[in-house]
């Protein structure tokens, strides 16, 4: 579903956020991107959502080389993607239902179809009774769930989330993650960037560890993944990730 091939990202200020990232995420997986603040987690998600473009290397999403997507094609590409943000990015002067409906309105669905799907999405995040409220009348956790409802309402195959639990206390954070897991269970590929190691430790999910713009490890080792990668690139990164926990002296 997602493939990064020796991806570099240097921002306009000269800061190299990604320094040769190679990774593979299969369809139907649930993967956490972890690492310290500044490691490059958000940059990876931005490259997936075409918010940024790589300086070098290739990014493949859903068998499509993103380098071939022109600016005109970006809206259509994004409409097939679900994105969740740490700060929710809800429109404050529109109701919860209107916020969730946005991707469907853009897609041009009929009002009846929109109402039906919005209710279903709100039901999935457990906020069916809050549809008429404004986002600021909800708690942070509820706002995040609205953000998730909006991300899944158009039934994307891929859901990406940047620090979706960043502002939440551990209990609420776990609820949110379990919500993502439920979407993953029905076949949605989920990629979550999070520096919250304790939270992820609770879960038996694949984890890609980043440090200084490189993949420094993977846990637990993903056998099929590692084998597939080793076949195509005999890179050091793949070798070290196949070894399990991030080794102390990962070569840079």
């Amino acid at each position, binding site marked *: 579903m997602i493939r990064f091939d020796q991806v570099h990202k240097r921002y306009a200020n000269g800061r190299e956020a990604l320094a040769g990232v190679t990774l593979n995420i299969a369809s139907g997986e649930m993967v956490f991107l972890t690492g310290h603040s500044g490691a490059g987690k958000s940059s990876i998600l931005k490259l997936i*959502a075409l*918010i940024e473009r790589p300086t070098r290397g290739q990014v493949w999403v859903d068998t499509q080389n993103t380098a071939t997507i022109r600016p005109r094609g970006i*809206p*259509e*590409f*994004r*409409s*097939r*993607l679900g*994105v969740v943000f740490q700060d929710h*990015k*809800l*429109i404050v002067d529109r109701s919860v239902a209107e916020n969730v409906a*946005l*991707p469907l*309105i*853009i*897609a*041009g*669905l*009929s*009002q009846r179809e929109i109402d039906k799907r919005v209710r279903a999405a709100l039901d999935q995040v457990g906020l069916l009774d809050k549809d008429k409220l404004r986002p600021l009348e909800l708690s942070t956790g509820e706002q995040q769930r609205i953000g998730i409802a*909006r991300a899944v309402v*158009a039934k994307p195959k891929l859901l990406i989330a940047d620090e979706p639990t960043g502002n939440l206390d551990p209990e609420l954070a776990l609820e949110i993650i379990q919500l993502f897991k439920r979407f993953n269970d029905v076949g949605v590929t989920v990629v979550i960037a999070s520096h919250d190691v304790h939270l992820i430790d609770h879960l038996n999910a694949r984890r890609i560890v980043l440090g200084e713009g490189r993949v420094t490890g993977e846990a637990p080792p993903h056998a099929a993944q590692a084998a597939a990668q080793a076949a195509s690139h005999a890179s050091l990164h793949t070798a070290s990730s196949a070894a399990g926990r991030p080794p102390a002296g990962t070569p840079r």
Partner: protein
Amino acid sequence: MSVEAYFTRHAQTLLGSLGRLVSTPFASAMTITVIGIALSLPLYLNVFLQNARIATENWNQAFDLSVYIDKKASATRTSLIAQQFRARSDVASVRVILAAAALAEFRSSSGFGAALDALRDNPLPDTLIVTPTLSASTPEGGAALKSALAQVPDVETVALDTDWVKRLYSLLDILRRVVLITAGLLGLGVALVVGNTIRLDILNRRMEIEVMKLVGATDAFARRPFLYSGVWYGLGGGLMALGLVEVGVLALSNSVTRLATLYGSSFHLAGVNFGTGLAVLMGSVFLSWLGSWTAATHHIKAIEPS
């Protein structure tokens, strides 16, 4: 997208944009008033011009040609010439003033009776007052008629004073150009005012536009509500301009009618007619739409999520 869903969506966006304008009544009223005032100026000039046209139509009908017959020609010859003129398609009527009658009239009305008796010959020629038909009553038609009549044997001179008509017409023509230039400049101003308003609106809603783009909105989709705002501004401003001019016409019409009565005219000041009103509304909507389209296209393109 089904046709029904498409129209429903547009209708919703249209109403949504109106709702947004209503929710900031002061700012919206300011913009609409600026458009209204800007458009009312050329409209006032136009009303003046239209009324000047109507008023001068009557003057135009008033011009006659004076044809002086050679003094050697007889009275019979004069009436023959008059008959020939009456047969012309561009002549409405011909009045004959014979030299003898003219002198008698002059003698009795001027009080120079004794002095005139001293003259051996009647100094006055036979005269024909030729009134052209309405369609020939133009500066060109008058000139053509004049040269045609001058060709006729025994016609001494033909006098046609159309200079004032020509001057009036060229004045009205200049005024018409002034109206067009003013309308063009102020129309441009309207587009810019609306464009600037939309620009500020877009900057205020930057986050919202970013979010829409993040969930897959095209620039055209994000632009749509702003175009509808522009349409509403244009409609409001156009109605305001028409209202301002109607009020002005109403305020002036009594004194104009009174003035006209003093000159023995039944002239009434006319307001904006339906066609012009419709054109003003459509023009106003179009200009605002153009302004908002330009601003929205430019500024929405510049907003990219980060």
